[in-house]
């Protein structure tokens, strides 16, 4: 009987060898290991053996059974992974075909720049406010220490609002489209909420249209009014902004300049990233900058006359202010050279959808 068991085992192994489908495997299992299978059949003979033989053969038969089951299980998992591979081949997709993009949305470059600039100043406690674009002469010029006959107040530089065939005039002078965000200064001081750390980012208008000027553009105005405000603090705020906006390796410099509403007045320069602040690239003059520096914007200590115009005592309160063009700042950061700045506000989707 032992011999028969050996033969059974051998026959099973041989049959298993050639099996290729799980159906055939299942049939084989039933044939050998099933309730009415060959093994069960064979073991029916056990009862005719002597107790000693029965014990020995019984143990052997058990080993054979375990062995067959193990072989079966091995074959089964072999077939399963073969099958999975086959299914996967049927489920093949082209992973190189172009992706299906969701409809692309875009924030305007100016919006993006405004957000980025504002975020940095927020960290220093500056809060965003909005002041009018259509403005009284008083806030746009007169209160800013700009004399009546200042060039900026001429009709060829600033847009005036019409009242019939005259310039509109009212309680605070003529009505203009503000040419700078500085109009927010006296308005902010007038609120009487001290101390002030304000940012006014808004549209400005000047009567100029060419490849480097759009008649509408944006300025960023920062104003700090408090006790004991110093030039050193203006430098600190500016340095903070430049390092975060343009990068930690950029240097800052203040240079003498002239504005009516600040005294002293500065031009804010940052070191050029193209030439590394040297002013030369490969022995040639750097095309980006002037002697290694790029002009970012203007700044200064708020003129006592402006503080006075807002109703504060310049003997008690001092402050600094700074302002620059949003579009220019963005272009300086990106190094993007926009051939004609007016494309920004033409709303050509072929341009807008690139950002």
């Amino acid at each position, binding site marked *: 009987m032992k011999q028969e068991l050996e033969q059974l085992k051998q026959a099973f192994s041989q049959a298993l060898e050639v099996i290729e489908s799980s159906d055939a495997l299942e049939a084989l299992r039933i044939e050998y290991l099933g309730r009415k299978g060959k093994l069960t059949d064979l073991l029916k003979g056990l009862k005719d053996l002597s107790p000693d033989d029965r014990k020995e053969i019984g143990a052997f038969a058990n080993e054979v059974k375990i062995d067959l089951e193990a072989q079966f299980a091995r074959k089964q998992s072999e077939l399963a992974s073969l099958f999975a591979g086959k299914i996967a081949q049927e489920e093949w997709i082209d992973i190189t075909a172009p992706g299906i993009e969701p409809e*692309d*949305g*875009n*924030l*305007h470059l100016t*919006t993006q720049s405004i957000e980025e600039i504002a975020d940095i100043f927020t960290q*220093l406690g500056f*809060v*965003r406010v*909005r002041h*009018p*674009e*259509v*403005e009284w002469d008083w806030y746009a010029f007169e209160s800013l220490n700009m004399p009546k006959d200042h*060039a900026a107040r001429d*009709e060829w530089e600033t*847009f*005036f*609002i*019409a009242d019939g065939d005259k310039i509109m005039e009212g*309680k605070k002078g003529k*009505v203009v*489209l503000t040419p700078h965000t500085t109009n927010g200064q006296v308005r902010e001081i007038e609120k009487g*909420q*001290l*101390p002030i*750390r304000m940012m006014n980012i808004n*549209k400005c208008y000047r*009567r*100029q249209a060419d490849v480097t000027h759009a008649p*509408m553009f944006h300025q960023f105005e920062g104003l*700090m009014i408090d006790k*004991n405000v*110093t*030039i*050193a*603090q203006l*430098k*600190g*705020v500016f*340095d903070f902004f430049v390092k975060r906006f343009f990068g930690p390796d950029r240097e800052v*410099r*203040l*240079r*003498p*300049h*002239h504005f009516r509403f600040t*005294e*002293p007045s500065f031009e804010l320069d940052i070191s050029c990233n193209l030439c590394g602040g040297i002013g030369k690239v490969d022995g040639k003059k750097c095309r980006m900058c*002037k*002697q290694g520096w790029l002009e970012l914007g203007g700044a200064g200590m708020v*003129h*006592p006359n402006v503080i006075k115009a807002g109703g504060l005592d310049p003997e008690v309160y*001092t402050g600094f202010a700074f302002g620059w063009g949003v579009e220019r700042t963005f272009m300086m950061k990106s190094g993007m050279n926009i051939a004609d700045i007016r494309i920004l*506000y033409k*709303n*050509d*989707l*072929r341009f*807008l959808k690139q950002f």
Partner: protein
Amino acid sequence: MNILASYNWIKEYLKTTATPEEFSREMSLKSMSVESIEYLKEKFDKIVIGEVKELKAHPGADRLKIAITDIGGRDVEIVCGGQNLCSTMKVVVALPGSKVRWHGQGDLIELNETQVRGVTSYGMICAPSELGFEKVACQDGDIWDLSGLVEAKAGTAFIEAMNMDDVILDIEVTSNRVDSMSIIGLAREGGVVTDGVFSFEASPDIIPGLGKELSVTVEAQDLCPRYMAVVIDGIKVGPSPLWLQNKLLLSGHRPINNIVDITNYVLHEYSQPLHAFDYQNLEGRSIIVRRAKNGEKIAALDEKTYELTENQLVIADASRPVAVAGVMGGEMAGTHNNTTTIVFESATFNPVSVRRTSRALNLFSDSQLLFEKGLSTELAKLALKHAVELTLEIAGGQVASPVYDVKEQEYSPLEFSWDPQKTKEIMGVDLSNEEMKKILEKLGFVLARTDGKYKVTVPFWRDHDIEGEIDFTEEIARVYGYHNIPISLPNQEPPTMFGDQDLIWESRTKNVFSSQGYTEFYGYSFVSAHDLERYDLDPQDAVALFNPLSSDLTHMRTSLIPSVLKDIEANQGETPFGQVFELQRVYQKREDDLPKEETRLVFGVFGVKDAQTSYLRQKGMLMLWAKSVGLELKFERLEDDVYWHPTRSAFVMYKGRKVGTIGQVANQYQQAFKVERPVILVDIDFEVLVNDMKVKRHYDPIPEFPAIIRDVAVEVNKKLEFESIWSKLINMDQLLEEVSLKDVYQGDKIDLDKKSITLSLTIRSKEKTLSSDEADAVVEKISRVLVDQMGGQVR
């Protein structure tokens, strides 16, 4: 404004050991910004004087010649097309390795020995513009003829022959510091910032003469606070000596003749414009400074004729204007080659008058630029003395009249008091009084101590710029060096105020739209009257510009829609479909007040093919946005609004109030803007809604028991609106949680006036898990309502 300044010229007034770089760096940091430094030695490297020995025809080109040119010790062949080229001519030769500007245009190009139509050319013979001297008088197609101008032998370096071993600085001068638009002014500043020694000695007083008297009258003294004039007789007009011509060339001026050159020389050195009249051409031998008569005309030196008005100041003789005061001289009384008697004018004109005259006439000049910044009356005299000294030296002749000097008033310098303590506080640096005082004194201020403070007298060259005590702080701080001031962040208490919350909601809104596939439009705030009219908006109701730049930007927007439609029109050719939004201000006119600036939101889609779907997409977007800003909006079918499609539009309602419109732009406006396919827009009054915008701060608990979803398909009247079905059904059964529209079908399988809708019912109990039977009962009930009350046929 910028000035080209020769460093050699500056050093005539400034003793300094500073190199041009050091000078430029200190100036930029403490005074005027030096924008570029040009070493002429480098610029004109390998450029020499040549002498043409012989000209040969070029075998390959009729218009070219081969010039056998002596370049110092050897003769070379140079191919040249210069029309004035002839043998024995002294020329400028750019040798291989030098850099020139081809035909005076573009970037500098390094020359090589090259073949020109088959003939090897050893460098080139230059025209003035090819060396950067556009101002040298030279016919087009000619080369620079230096014969008779330079003594130097062939082979001499160009800069040596021309005595041009100099460094040219391009300096930006701020508009308040017209005194520094001069060599003397820059030398003075240079002395302060480089610790050099500035010295200036005025020319000797003019010794009055006799014989050619003049009548000088100033009628409009308000526009001319000082007018000086003097006559010089017996002069000889001719070319200036080379040194004078070269100085002018390097300063960007065009040498013309000795008299004109002297006026430009003094202008550049002193920043005082001068004018020379031909005495013989002044009718009545008189000069009258007066306002022009309306309609009076003058032919100016630029060969154009200008019509004047009574607001404009002229210099006139007995019968006509001979110059637009401070702006430009007239052709009639200018100096010519045969002029022998001249009148020098050195005057001070009202800066505003000069500026307005210049802008009104669109006429600009070096003089006008300086006058409109404001010059001191004291400068006029110094400049005149210098001009007379130079003239007698260069052009000969003698003074033949008294020195006429008509002044509004005697000069008295400005004085202000100054408290050094305040300067220290603003700078945030502890400087001693002595240090600060020294800075002011080097700049020419005179200080006298008065009980703890100082009385400061302002030098005449700063009398248009210094206006008060705070200006002294600026002078001290800049010379001390802004770069020397330490950097510190504000250490005061931060402010307690909040900013404008609107801006936060605007920013959030823009982010919602851009993240959902909408592109932001960002247009000009002004539109044309035509654009308003195309959208049937009355330009009379819009804020109008008094002085628009062009006819397409004349009125402030009262609605964003016309510009959005215009932008769609411009885009549709290249981009036939698009989803866009714009969130910007509009401007509503108000009587006797500034216009009201209000934020509006417009968004939508153009290039629409299926209006129902596109409408629902925009409505969906509106709902999504409203949710993000915590608003609950409702809709009402729109009636009687010409701007919108009558059956495809709705009013957007908030708390019972109309806050906007959603729908298809009415056909007539689509056509008015030549937009090819339908446009679905949403126009929202952001300004009103922003006050109620909020972040959601509560939540509904998650249901404890599962819902059963059942669909009901029913055929109903085509115009039966979902809203009315919903409101009918939603309260029919306590277990009915939501009714949503799953599908709509219209087509050949059902009647034309019917549609088949599939409703999806969400059935849920708050107390238990429902059985299938319980759900069936709800479906049954709903189906009955649909059939019995809404004319439906359940399928």
